């Protein structure tokens, strides 16, 4: 009788797999995504499909080029997730080539040059978003007012095709997101305390019927998805809580000091891509620290940097930059923040015996 002795145990295994993890994340994104596609109509759906398709295509090409088997990696959902998150960080009516270029930045440049799945230092979707933002500032900051699908005044199927694939008629409809609006007003000398009264109310920010990229609207549905990930133990509380907490504390603290200059904490939480960033972007396994202690440091860093960039830098939204900056620190955080070994001190020396 033939049995196998080629490896040591265990000879039982939890029903875990990479694709199971990725699929759970994708499922958690579904409610927010459906809402956003409804909110911005056909062009959003096209952009969404093109981004994911381009990312999957790029992944297949890279795998083929590297001589790796296509099926296991292509089917585990990791490339689809990258595409999904990238699509959620684009203006919903962006042209098709933004999506395709984004896929080129994300998959071959940010992921496969490092060695593919699990090897990349930076979050691929955020590399793509930042590269696009810096290279095409006009297209990446042209936001439209919500145009719910099938509503009067919203583009129909054919019109949507021309928006996504043709020249489009965006200029007349462009608008600014809440974060962008406040930044512009501040630069014109309008104090935050004044301009903030003109942005949508907290309720509108929560419900998500507002201007922004797909992942910036529907904060509540994104939060719901995040809670699903927590409940399914795909992620732990450490990163989201520290990101949100730091951002809220910094906002509240500085707003209390000078309300004309600094936006309040709640506004930081409810605007921009705060929830998407905290629950879905910053928690990316590959580019975040592996230990809980390290994750706390990493989350605080992202919250702090996001607040600094939103408040002092030229860009209204800082989440993507903050995540990338902290990604670069992940290897160092991993080196310095690790669990204490059983029977040893933090420095790795055996614990002293009583009386020693």
């Amino acid at each position, binding site marked *: 009788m*033939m*049995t196998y002795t080629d490896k040591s*145990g*265990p*000879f039982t*295994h939890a029903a875990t797999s990479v694709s199971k993890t990725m699929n759970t994340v994708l499922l958690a994104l579904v409610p927010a995504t459906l809402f956003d596609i409804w909110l911005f109509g056909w062009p959003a759906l096209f952009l969404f499909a093109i981004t994911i398709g381009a990312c999957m295509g790029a992944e297949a090409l890279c795998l083929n080029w590297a001589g790796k088997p296509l099926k296991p990696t292509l089917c585990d959902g990791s490339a689809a997730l990258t595409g999904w998150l990238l699509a959620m960080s684009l203006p919903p009516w962006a042209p098709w080539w933004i999506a395709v270029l984004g896929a080129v930045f994300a998959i071959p440049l940010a992921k496969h040059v490092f060695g593919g799945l699990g090897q990349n230092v930076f979050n691929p979707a955020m590399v793509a978003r930042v590269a696009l933002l810096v290279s095409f500032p006009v297209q990446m900051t042209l936001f439209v007012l919500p145009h719910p699908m099938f509503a009067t005044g919203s583009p129909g199927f054919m019109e949507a095709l021309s928006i996504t694939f043709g020249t489009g008629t965006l200029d007349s409809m462009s608008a600014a997101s809440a974060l962008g609006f406040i930044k512009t007003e501040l630069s014109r000398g309008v104090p935050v305390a004044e301009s903030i009264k003109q942005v949508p109310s907290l309720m509108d920010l929560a419900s998500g019927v507002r201007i922004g990229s797909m992942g910036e609207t529907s904060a509540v549905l994104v939060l719901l998805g995040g809670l699903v990930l927590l409940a399914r133990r795909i992620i732990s509380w450490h990163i989201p809580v520290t990101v949100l907490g730091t951002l809220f504390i910094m906002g509240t603290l500085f707003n209390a000091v000078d309300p004309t200059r600094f936006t309040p904490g709640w506004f930081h939480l409810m605007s921009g891509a705060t929830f998407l960033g905290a629950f879905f972007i910053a928690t990316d396994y590959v580019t*975040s620290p592996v230990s809980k202690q390290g994750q706390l440091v990493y989350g605080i860093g992202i919250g702090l940097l996001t607040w600094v960039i939103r408040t002092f830098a030229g860009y209204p939204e800082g989440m993507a930059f903050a995540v990338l900056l902290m990604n670069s620190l992940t290897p160092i955080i991993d080196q310095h923040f690790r669990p204490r070994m*059983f029977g040893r001190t933090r420095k790795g020396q*055996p614990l002293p*015996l009583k009386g020693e």
Partner: protein
Amino acid sequence: MKLFPVRGGIHPDYRKERTSEGAIVALPLPKALYLPLQQHIGAPAEPVVKAGDAVKKGQLLAKGAGAVSAPTHAPTSGIISAITEVAAPHPSGLAQLTIVLQPDGKDEWAELPAALDPSTASPEDIRARVAECGIVGMGGATFPSAVKLGLGTQKPIETLLLNGAECEPYLTCDDRVMREYAAEVVDGARIMARALGAAKIVVGIETNKPAALAAMTEAAKTFADVEVVGVPVQYPMGSERHLVQAITGLETPARKLTADLGVVVHNVGTARAVHDAVRFGRPLIARVVTVSGGAVAKPQNLEVPLGTLVSELVAFCGGLTEPPRRIVNGGPMMGQPLPSLDVPVIKGTCGILALTAVETNEQPVGPCIRCGTCVTICPCGLVPVEMASYIRKDNLEAAATAGVTDCVSCGSCSYICPSHIPLVHYFNYAKGALAAQGREQRKQDKTKELVEIHNDRVEKLAQAKREAAAAKKAAAAAAAAAQVETPQ
């Protein structure tokens, strides 16, 4: 009793219900028994019989050799047919020297050593009896129990911790022993506590064994010094250091023993064996083995004479219903794969599992996605993902600094890994390679020392020679000078 939290751990599918509810069944005597000389940690036993000898049940076949060793006795009466090389119950399938016994069917007892009265016997007498009866750690570690019971002579021991956690999936042999032989186990524990000089006994049982908990509590209720405690169901609760932490809150320092904290841990099966040895003079010649796994027709617990071939156990359990993917000696988490069924049951064999491909759920290894679950669940506070990446690059020094030698190979990280990376396989490789490096280093150091001594000696000889030559020369010169002077 207040318990203390233990870091990490997992909750695997236990699958214990397949065997936990049936009583232990005695396996009929097989046609031949194969008793390896090495059934324990330490030096192999030395045979005291030869081929052709007639032996009785319980008679000494091979005596312990050295301080850490254990003797082997005849599980039944019969004829020694050979002392020869037989495949060992080890993944390598390599042969080792084994005494082959043909039972005569009479099952006649030899004259056994007289029963000891534990209330009057000295700790030395108890330890001597335990050593004489060949008792080793029956949880699978197979460390000679008498040596462990002697720890009380070196350090003050306050507590004997009886390990009934049985945290490995499938295995129920300890569960059944506690249910069916609770009084014997408690008595054995009290004898061991006396040998150790321990005032207190705590029995730790995972709460997924309510019947065993009840039986043991009942058996212990008349003894003020014995406490039975339900511990959380959390693999690897049965790991000695972790069980000590859960029950006493004490964390054993690295490279120290639990005995340094005043706690010694013994398995419940060992306690039962000690009871038999002290009260009746019976040596360790049989043990309870869980035969289970999806490929076994009738999984159950068997009381097996040592030396019985695994194939006999499987046949008694109705044979295999399908070709198993793995035959495992022990539990599925820390057990060893067996190359075939034609190997004997030895003192540390707590389970024989024939696992189907569905149960083992082996998948192709994928790339690590750094999910960090292995870090979260490691009960030793290690970073498996990091150690594995060092070992893959054969950077053993970095792996050692990262703590690979502190790994207890519990398998939790491999079990949970979504990419099915065989982390423990890496760590076992590294531990082996580091141990080999250490041996090589010690050998080199010794050689260097000898060479230095040799060089010193040669140098001293040369020096002496030079001095002698110089002295001779000086003497000659003096003589010459004297001669020159003389004519004047």
